[in-house]
């Protein structure tokens, strides 16, 4: 347990949520000037701003747990970011982008909402007010894309589903075995969040030509799963993305 009550796996858990949100902010930002219409651009810009604001709050609680703030903000290598692997690369088309951020933003919200700890009371409720608009935007867009471009949506779902399941956690982390539930830090095991995520998209795409990938209990392989970075394998974002996140090219203008 850490000094004020967080169990050890909780720091990694919150770090992964925070890093996923900083990359969500990056991906929203990349698309906010090239969406199909102005309304999507404005929504994307608002989502980016929300995510960066949430990251600041999550970094604040992480530093209270002893995580170095310089490391968090400006001294990390690409493979030290624990973002969901869904965000490692920029999407190459609008339907792909919407599936990418929809799955990832919803999964991050479900992980955050599962936290049952006093340090997050109030903070998570406020973040949920932001997330309502993100997730409604995604689902509204997915509904229309499922009608207009079902093949593109289905292909993106197949690409991203294994990585988003890895981010949520292995199926073996159920009510009896999820270490964060066991420690009392969360009140919803990964296995239940996986089912909630899959059921949400099955309901959303019911009656359309889009099939949601089956919930494979073997994905991710629990033996290959990296608990710290919540993924399988050693993939990571590109170094130039990390340079942008850390403001490397503008470091001389940092206000001391």
């Amino acid at each position, binding site marked *: 347990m850490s000094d004020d009550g967080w169990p050890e796996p909780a720091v990694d858990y919150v770090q992964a949520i925070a890093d996923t949100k900083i990359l969500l902010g990056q991906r929203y930002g990349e698309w906010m000037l090239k969406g199909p*219409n*102005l*309304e*999507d651009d*404005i*929504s994307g810009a*608002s989502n980016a701003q929300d995510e960066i604001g949430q990251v600041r709050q999550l970094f604040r609680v992480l530093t209270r747990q002893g995580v170095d703030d310089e490391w968090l903000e400006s001294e990390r290598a690409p493979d030290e970011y624990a973002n969901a692997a869904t965000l490692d690369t920029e999407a190459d088309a609008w339907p792909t982008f919407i599936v990418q951020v929809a799955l990832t933003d919803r999964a991050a919200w479900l992980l955050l909402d599962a936290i049952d700890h006093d340090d997050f009371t109030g903070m998570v409720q406020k973040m949920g007010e932001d997330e309502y*608009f993100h997730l*409604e*935007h995604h*689902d*509204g*867009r997915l*509904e*229309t894309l499922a009608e207009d471009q079902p093949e593109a949506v289905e292909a993106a779902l197949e690409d991203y589903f294994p990585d988003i399941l890895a981010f949520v956690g292995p199926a073996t982390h159920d009510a009896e075995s999820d270490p964060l539930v066991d420690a009392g830090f969360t009140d919803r095991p990964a296995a239940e969040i996986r089912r909630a995520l899959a059921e949400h998209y099955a309901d959303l795409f019911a009656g359309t030509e889009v099939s949601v990938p089956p919930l494979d209990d073997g994905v991710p392989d629990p033996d290959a799963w990296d608990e710290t970075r919540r993924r399988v394998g050693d993939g990571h974002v590109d170094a130039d993305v990390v340079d942008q996140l850390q403001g490397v090219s503008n470091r001389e203008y940092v206000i001391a």
Partner: protein
Amino acid sequence: MKYHVFTRVSAGDDLMHVGTVQADSDRLARIYAHRTYDEEDWDFIGVVHEENLIEVEGQPIAGGRTA
């Protein structure tokens, strides 16, 4: 599809037309309106599909005059 956005600052105020959004569904229109016109702490914000606006126009009456 075009949606008109109406708001009011305080309960009891008349609704004000603040602009429009283009959206493919009512669900998206709600989100776009909130995101685009979020400059105030509105008491109410709502959208109306342009097709649902009832046009008020003069009609010919007997004798060829208009109302």
